[in-house]
């Protein structure tokens, strides 16, 4: 992927509130058709990062480019390529859905001749046609969230930023919003924050984990490819030390009696060596399989400091 395809390019982003460090050295890169998940515990800096990307909070350091435009140098132009759903949907309760979307389109500089068409398309994409004439205050939370997403895409922006779009919704509404985000990837680059791991795993091409304002992981949501782990179940297990000394074994963790998690050097010799040793030493191997670390494991291990505290 070349950098010219990047719709969002964030480099060395940082933010202080007084002496408190909220975000430090965050680097993000999202291309069209990609969904990036921003994960982190409460207070990790997700909302602060998204607010800086959307221009509602000035960064202390770093640069943000949206569709090739510098957000700090050319804020008005860059924001035309941006749709933002904040944590609390920015709705005007006393207007109808259609009227509110027309206002959002006007704010985002959709030409007057295209406004009606843009609103109709946003209503259609978010499944809001039936409630277009209803006052927003009379809608359920799920529908209000959809209106929030509709206002973020009404001007067909290159980048859609969604801050915890499924928080507070019931399971059916969560599924609908996920489907909607999945549809958005066809035409936009999407970045969204969440602390719901299965949601991120189901939707995202890439994940960034923030912890205490720092970027502690950046990669795919399914695995940390560099670390291959195996589970080995033995009928007659030795002490873990006996496994640790085998060639190519980097670490051993006993999960339960007779079940070990081994982290091996990434070559087949280490694998052969362990299997041969298990058979020849009479440990009676019964199960052996490769296990990838789930996103949950990666997340919990990277944010362990917080959990321990």
């Amino acid at each position, binding site marked *: 992927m070349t950098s010219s395809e990047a719709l969002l390019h964030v480099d060395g982003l940082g933010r202080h509130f007084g002496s408190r460090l909220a975000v430090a050295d965050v680097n993000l890169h999202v291309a069209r058709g990609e969904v990036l998940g921003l994960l982190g515990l409460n207070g990790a800096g997700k909302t602060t990062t998204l607010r800086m990307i959307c*221009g*509602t909070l000035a960064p202390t350091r770093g640069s943000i480019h949206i569709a090739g435009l510098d957000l700090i140098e050319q804020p*008005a132009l860059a924001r035309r390529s941006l749709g933002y759903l904040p944590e609390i949907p920015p*709705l005007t309760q006393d207007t109808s859905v259609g009227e509110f979307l027309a206002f959002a389109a006007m704010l985002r500089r959709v030409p007057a001749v295209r406004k009606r068409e843009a609103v109709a398309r946003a209503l259609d994409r978010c499944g809001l046609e039936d409630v277009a004439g209803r006052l927003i205050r009379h809608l359920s939370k799920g529908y209000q969230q959809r209106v929030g997403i509709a206002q973020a895409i009404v001007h067909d922006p290159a980048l859609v930023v969604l801050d915890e779009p499924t928080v507070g919704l019931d399971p059916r509404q969560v599924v609908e919003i996920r489907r909607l985000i999945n549809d958005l990837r066809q035409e936009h680059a999407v970045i969204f924050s969440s602390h719901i791991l299965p949601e991120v795993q189901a939707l995202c091409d890439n994940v960034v984990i923030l912890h205490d304002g720092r970027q502690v992981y950046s990669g795919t949501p399914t695995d940390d490819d560099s670390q291959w782990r195996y589970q080995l179940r033995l009928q007659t297990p030795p002490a873990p030390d006996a496994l640790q000394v085998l060639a190519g074994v980097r670490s051993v963790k006993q999960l339960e009696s007779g079940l070990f998690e081994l982290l091996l050097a990434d070559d087949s010799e280490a694998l052969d060596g362990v299997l041969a040793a298990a058979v020849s030493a009479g440990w009676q191997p019964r199960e052996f399989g490769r296990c990838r670390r789930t996103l949950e494991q990666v997340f919990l291990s990277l944010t362990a400091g917080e959990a321990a505290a």
Partner: protein
Amino acid sequence: MMALRLAWRELRLIGRGPAFWLLLGLIQVFAAWWYLLLIEQYRSHYEPLVVRVNSPMGVNDLVVLPFYGSVLLLGALLLGAAMLAMRLLADERRSGSLQLLLSSPISMTQLTVGKYLAALGCLALLALPWLLLPWTLAFGTELDTARLLSANLGVLLLVSVLAAIALFASSLTAQPATAAALTVAIAVALMGLNAGVEAVAGGEDAVADYLALLSHYEPLVQGLIRSSDIIYFALLVLAFVAFTIRQLDSLRLQR
């Protein structure tokens, strides 16, 4: 153009709630009551007196002047300004809808001017009964038109400053009630600045006198249009609008 669109939308939203119409109705009742009281007083008390002593004074001095100098007018406009302060920006901040405006491709100046024009339009509508009622005197007597126009200009200039104060107060807090209280506090402080300083210092203070709002409003009501007064009102409006733009910018920069 964007500022005008924002202003028009804001005006429509204000017009949808009952508060504005309720206030407009109340102000009309107050204005009509006060106006009729002054006319009745003039007919039964002042008119025979004026004829007897052959005084040059007439309705222009004894009805129009007290009508515009009334504390009722100031109170009604303050009430309107406080109501506007509750919603202009404070309510947008409280509900989170300000995020939509801040992340849109519009400048803080466009946003502030749009909100200001809406506040100005709304307060001018509230002041309409006070602007129009004295003109009905023209049916029964000879009016000093220039003097009445000057008084109308005074009310409009007062309205323009109160709208700017309401906007600024509204930008200071996310709590609508606090914004309303701040509006009243700033406006009352500006109106009574000279009286307050006088009470403390025990004599007139030229600076306080110049800064006080009413010392620039009263000459206009009396029919005296001075460029210094108009510049004073314009400067106040510009200052409060500039403070608001700065305050909105500081929301992005919050330390």
